């Protein structure tokens, strides 16, 4: 069906019908080939197929198709399981612009999202072709440059003409928008246009600068030794800049179009929707009215999320969006922001301007009904997304508090808005809203703003107590049907006839035929099913004006997306020919696993407005239930024998078999926390062999069951095995199991699911050769991507003369360097060790009982101790009192900087040293330190004091966004206490212990929570490493090494003796003082004549 599409003009492609794909991936013949799985030996094979060659003619090709760039019009959240690390379906935020590499016939496109740099599959029906006339030249030029770099690699980069094209593109953008000069009207009259224009220009100059470096680097002699690696970084940098330039350009254009629209709105207030500005007879508006309201709405809507994305990308831009041979990149690892706090913030930032706009409209009377209603729908849909998020937080918190109140209020208010909005009956387009309704809506809207603010503040509070968490997509999707979306959908037809009035174009027959083939469902039905069907397009295929209803429907549709997931045939489905098959099967698996469970587990709740219970009600209900079901604290044995749940519904105990069953339920996806806890800790309560056998038993146990049970269970067993092999394999403990795993894959799994069997066998073989988890830990992976873009690093604070001096480290004192730079280098040094701490080091008190198996925890302790000593010695071994005070002051500054960059570990090490008895007692030295610095130290002491189990420090760390190196002490203490305070097993029934014991999973859940909390911070700092300063540290640490093997206590004695030499005790005076003073504080020294005095004597 898509075949007909190219004949239609680009202008009509409101819904992008995927063009025939002439790229390798999509050729139908390829896909019909029997499923041969090529082992993914190189990265190229696991990435989407490369784009056509980067020559000018291919550019023209793209141009003709108009498909080189897409813009997302609906947010899309891929329904994948976060533990399923191989998924490459990308999430989309509305307004995202995507560089398309190829489009599959079923409607999925392989593309790179410019703002995040992530590459993967995305549904084209959520996007629209993006190619406004104004920016087209720039898009093409950037595309050309991008293609050139990609195709030609390092070699062909020499020519500057490509960059010149980009410059010309920017020029043409500015020309066509009449913003060439700073004095032009648009620039002078709109702040946003001016600002974004400036950003475009500065980004362009940065790009030109970077591009120039490449020929230089090519010529430099050091490149000859390792040209590929040398250039990769540079090429990455340039490509990154291309993307950024594009984003800026698009932002500028958005701002400009908005500005134009606002002008028009003023002029032609009576006409709705506003017509495009007269001078721009261009593509953006050539769609004859249908696209202009859409674009307008989206721009208004999306301004903030786009900006948020952009600010993120400037720091966390993964450089690896382009796959080159030899690059470390696996697209699956890219992890979008899923922190609850972040999502809340983004949604709120989106919601607020929307509300503001709505209120503003209502205040300027009279208003057209249609405008108000449309705005209302938008507001409602956005609020419902916001409410979903808040609800996730409430659920996590599981406490009824002020947040629930705000939630309920907002929910009810927005429900009222929805009702009032629906009551607006529109007869003709010119109809104005009556004052009464207007006032009512205004009041409701103002109230919603207030409650939404409350909600955000309270959710923030809750998050600060319970800690930030990752939001599960599934969770989000399941909730996605909030606030009366049903109603809204039903209302859609009411407004539809009106749309026809408004936009004449919708009546043209072309529209129908264009949108028809875009329904990828049909493609899926006909073709083999190697890709998840893209979410069905918004039903309103006329695609004219009815923005809100479309959004609603989309949201509505999303959860049910790949309905046919349970079909076992999917797995046997042939794979797309050539290189892309590996990735394709992965998301499919994931989605299959998700949906098959999703549908039954979430009963077809139709959370229409009226039925949604208030949060308080719901909670009290569930509490009652749990109380009633409580007496034996045992789960209904019918559903799952041998499994205990606590009152929060978390697994608290169970036999290994029951836990494995929980991992592989036929009707629901296992909770992410449960799965992660299991993977991290299972070796504490079972041998790897037990685990593997339990999984195989589980697989066998469903042999007699109907397909509807057996298939998902088996698939999940496979998924658990896969997750283990890919992400949690430990060679030394798990190696024994490999033969069993391989045998299972070969003899059992391949019989029911040939592809899965094959894949698992490959994984097992791979694991045997690699010796560790195949997929690097998610966090670390992001971190390294982070590191490779030096672009966003702050420039180091070090002068050439300092670097020169550092060549002789023994001559450089702490005061010769800048405290900020010392702190940065400390963060790098400590961060390296901290990021390499493995979960297994933290289990079962390994770091205490077998320190040799916990090298990184030990290294953390050693480094902290050494830093403490460096600090102490730099002060104590300085004879001059003034210099001593200076050194002291400098260390306070360094500690303060450490704290500023959230490196609590180093800050703790330094302050510990400053507070140690040998330093703290140097009263005369302290007298020379300005009060300001003493106060700084005092402040730090408050933050890092150990009072009340490090309450202050814990609270601070909880809210932190990485990068941050927390002081690891409290984590270790918690782990110790969890280990020792909780037994390994628990009785099945409290009343009747004779019934036996099961694994106390609660203990392991707690353990894994702490470990995951640590892992959350395992992100390196975005600082440039300065080898000279690192060497200086190493040198100083090396200086200490001479007495490294002597006991810590002895070292302390040496230091204390030294302390007494430089500032001897004032014997008689202080003796008196000791009689007077009531308590001995840290700074006053009293003189009891115990052994210390002896040392002073002996050393003097």
């Amino acid at each position, binding site marked *: 069906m898509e075949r007909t599409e190219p004949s239609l003009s680009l202008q009509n492609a409101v819904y992008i019908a995927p063009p025939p794909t002439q790229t390798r991936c999509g050729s139908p013949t390829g896909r019909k080939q029997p499923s041969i799985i090529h082992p993914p030996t190189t990265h190229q094979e696991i990435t989407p197929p490369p784009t056509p060659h980067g020559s000018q003619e291919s550019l023209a090709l793209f141009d003709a198709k108009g498909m080189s760039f897409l813009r997302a019009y609906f947010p899309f959240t891929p329904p994948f399981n976060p533990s399923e690390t191989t998924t490459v379906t990308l999430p989309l935020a509305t307004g995202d612009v995507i560089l398309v590499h190829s489009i599959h016939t079923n409607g999925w496109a392989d593309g790179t999202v410019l703002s995040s740099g992530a590459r993967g599959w995305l549904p084209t029906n959520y996007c629209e072709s993006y190619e406004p006339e104004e920016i087209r030249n720039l898009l093409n030029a950037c595309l050309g440059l991008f293609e050139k770099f990609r195709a030609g690699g390092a070699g062909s980069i020499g020519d500057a003409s490509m960059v010149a094209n980009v410059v010309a593109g920017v020029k043409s953008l500015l020309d066509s928008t009449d913003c060439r000069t700073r004095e032009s009207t648009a620039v002078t009259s709109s702040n946003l246009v001016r600002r974004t224009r400036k950003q475009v220009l500065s980004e362009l100059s940065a790009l030109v600068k970077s591009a120039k470096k490449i020929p230089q680097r090519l010529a430099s002699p050091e490149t000859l030794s390792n040209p590929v690696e040398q250039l990769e970084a540079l090429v990455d940098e340039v490509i990154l800049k291309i993307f950024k330039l594009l984003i800026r350009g698009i932002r500028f254009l958005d701002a400009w179009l908005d500005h134009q629209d606002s002008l028009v709105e003023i002029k032609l207030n009576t006409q709705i929707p506003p017509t495009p500005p007269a001078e721009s007879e261009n593509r953006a508006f050539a769609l004859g009215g249908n696209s202009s309201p859409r674009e307008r709405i989206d721009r208004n809507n999306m301004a903030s999320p786009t900006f948020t994305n952009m600010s993120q990308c400037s720091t966390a831009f993964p450089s690896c969006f382009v796959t080159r041979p030899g690059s470390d990149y696996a697209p699956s690892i890219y992890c979008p922001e899923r922190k609850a706090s972040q999502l809340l913030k983004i949604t709120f930032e989106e919601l607020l301007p929307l509300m503001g706009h709505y209120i503003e409209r209502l205040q300027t009377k009279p208003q057209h009904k249609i405008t108000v209603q449309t705005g209302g729908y938008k507001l409602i849909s956005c609020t419902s997304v916001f409410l979903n998020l808040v609800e996730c937080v409430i659920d996590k918190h599981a406490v009824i508090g002020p947040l629930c109140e705000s939630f309920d209020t907002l929910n009810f208010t927005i429900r009222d808005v929805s009702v009032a909005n629906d009551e607006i009956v529109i007869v003709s387009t010119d109809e104005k809203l009556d004052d009464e309704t207007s006032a009512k809506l205004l009041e409701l809207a103002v109230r919603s703003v207030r409650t939404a603010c409350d909600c955000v503040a309270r959710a923030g509070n809750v998050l600060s107590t319970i800690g930030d968490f990752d939001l599960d997509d599934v969770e989000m999707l399941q909730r996605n049907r909030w606030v009366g979306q049903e109603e809204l959908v039903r209302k859609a037809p009411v407004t539809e006839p009106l749309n026809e009035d408004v936009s004449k174009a919708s009546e043209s027959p072309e529209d129908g035929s264009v949108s028809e083939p875009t329904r990828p469902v049909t493609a899926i039905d006909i073709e083999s099913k190697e890709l998840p069907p893209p979410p069905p397009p918004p039903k309103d295929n006329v695609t004219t004006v009815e923005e809100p209803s479309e959004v609603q429907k989309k949201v509505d549709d999303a959860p049910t997306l790949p309905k046919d997931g349970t079909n076992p045939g999917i797995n046997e489905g042939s794979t797309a020919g050539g290189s892309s098959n590996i990735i394709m099967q992965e998301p499919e698996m994931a989605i299959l696993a998700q949906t098959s469970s999703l549908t039954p587990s979430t009963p077809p709740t139709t959370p229409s407005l009226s039925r949604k219970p208030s949060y308080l009600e719901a909670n009290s209900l569930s509490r009652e239930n749990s109380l009633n079901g409580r007496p034996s604290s045992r789960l209904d044995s019918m559903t799952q024998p041998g499994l205990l749940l606590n009152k929060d519904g978390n697994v608290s105990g169970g036999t290994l078999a029951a836990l494995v069953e929980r991992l592989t339920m036929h009707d629901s996806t296992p909770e992410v926390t449960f799965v992660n806890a299991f993977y991290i800790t299972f070796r504490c309560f079972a041998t790897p062999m037990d685990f593997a056998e339990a999984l195989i038993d589980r697989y066998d146990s469903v042999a007699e069951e109907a397909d509807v049970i057996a298939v998902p269970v088996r698939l999940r067993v496979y998924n658990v095995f896969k997750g283990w092999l890919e992400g949690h394999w430990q060679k030394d403990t798990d190696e024994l199991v490999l033969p069993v795993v391989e045998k299972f894959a070969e003899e059992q799994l391949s019989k029911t699911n040939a592809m899965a069997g094959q894949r698992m066998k490959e994984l097992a073989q791979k694991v045997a050769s690699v010796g560790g988890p195949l997929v690097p830990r998610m966090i670390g992976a992001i971190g390294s991507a982070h590191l490779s873009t030096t672009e966003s690093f702050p420039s180091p604070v070090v002068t050439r003369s300092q670097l020169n001096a550092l060549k002789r480290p023994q001559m450089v004192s702490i005061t010769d360097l800048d405290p900020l730079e010392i702190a940065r280098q400390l963060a790098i040094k400590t961060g390296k060790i901290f990021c390499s701490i493995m979960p297994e080091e933290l289990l079962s008190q390994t770091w205490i009982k077998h320190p040799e198996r916990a090298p990184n925890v030990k290294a953390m302790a050693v480094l902290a*101790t050494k830093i403490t000593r460096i600090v102490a010695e730099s002060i104590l071994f300085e004879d001059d009192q003034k210099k001593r005070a200076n050194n002291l002051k400098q260390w306070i500054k360094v500690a303060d900087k450490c704290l500023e960059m959230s490196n609590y570990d180093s800050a703790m090490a330094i302050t510990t040293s400053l507070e140690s008895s040998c330093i703290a007692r140097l009263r005369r030295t302290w007298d020379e330190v300005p009060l300001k610095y003493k106060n700084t130290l005092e402040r730090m002491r408050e933050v890092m004091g150990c009072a*009340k189990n490090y309450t202050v420090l814990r609270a601070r760390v909880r809210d932190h966004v990485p990068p941050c190196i927390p002081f690891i002490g409290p984590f270790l203490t918690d782990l110790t206490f969890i280990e020792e305070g909780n037994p390994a097993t628990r009785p099945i029934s409290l009343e009747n212990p004779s019934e036996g014991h099961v694994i106390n999973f609660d203990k392991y859940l707690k353990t894994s929570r702490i470990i995951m909390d640590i892992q959350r911070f395992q992100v390196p700092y975005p600082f440039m490493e300065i080898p000279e300063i690192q060497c200086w540290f190493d040198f100083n640490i090396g200086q200490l090494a001479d007495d490294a093997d002597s006991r810590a206590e002895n070292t302390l004695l040496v230091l204390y003796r030294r302390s007494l030499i430089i500032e001897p005790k004032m014997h008689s005076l202080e003796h008196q003082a000791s009689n*007077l003073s009531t308590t001995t504080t840290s700074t006053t020294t009293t003189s009891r004549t115990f052994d210390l005095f002896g040392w002073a004597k002996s050393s003097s």
Partner: protein
Amino acid sequence: MGRISALLDGGVGKSCLTAQFVQNVWVESYDPTIEDSYTKVINVDGRTCMLEILDTAGTEQFTAMREIYMRTGHGFLLVYSITSLSTFQELTELRSQILRIKETQNVPIVIVGNKSDLQEDRAVTHNRAIQLSQSWGRVPFYETSARNRLNVDEVFMDLCRQIMRKEIVEGTKVTKASSSTMDGQGGGRKKKKFCTIL
């Protein structure tokens, strides 16, 4: 309120001791991450006393931190395992470090031989511990079993009593030596007692 610090090399089960003391009744699941998990209100000789226990179990490798913990604590439990002679021998060094940091000989200390339920593995005799106690000037000595909850409360009570006594003595001393102001001396004190378990 008092602060007891607990410090000793791993494997002694001192964190078990703390957990047992704080949670009083056996609970299904012990969560150390909450603030309350290291504080307890106890009644000593008719006086209510809030004890804050600083137990840094698990961080023994961070030797530099030890000094801070020692300085923070008002009283110390020096815990060894009766099944391990080396843990017993370390006590002497710990005590001298405490005395040095506190810069006084008068520090509330209790010697605790834990794991008394493991009699068959005993490596430190009763007598040996008593000797040590004598040589330190009759420092109280208990054998405990965190597992069986034997002598757990007693140990903390004893230490708390010592801390309180010390405060009173020093309080009166001050009033004698100089009439400097002391808020709420004697029975009226509400100061926290910080205990460090060693």
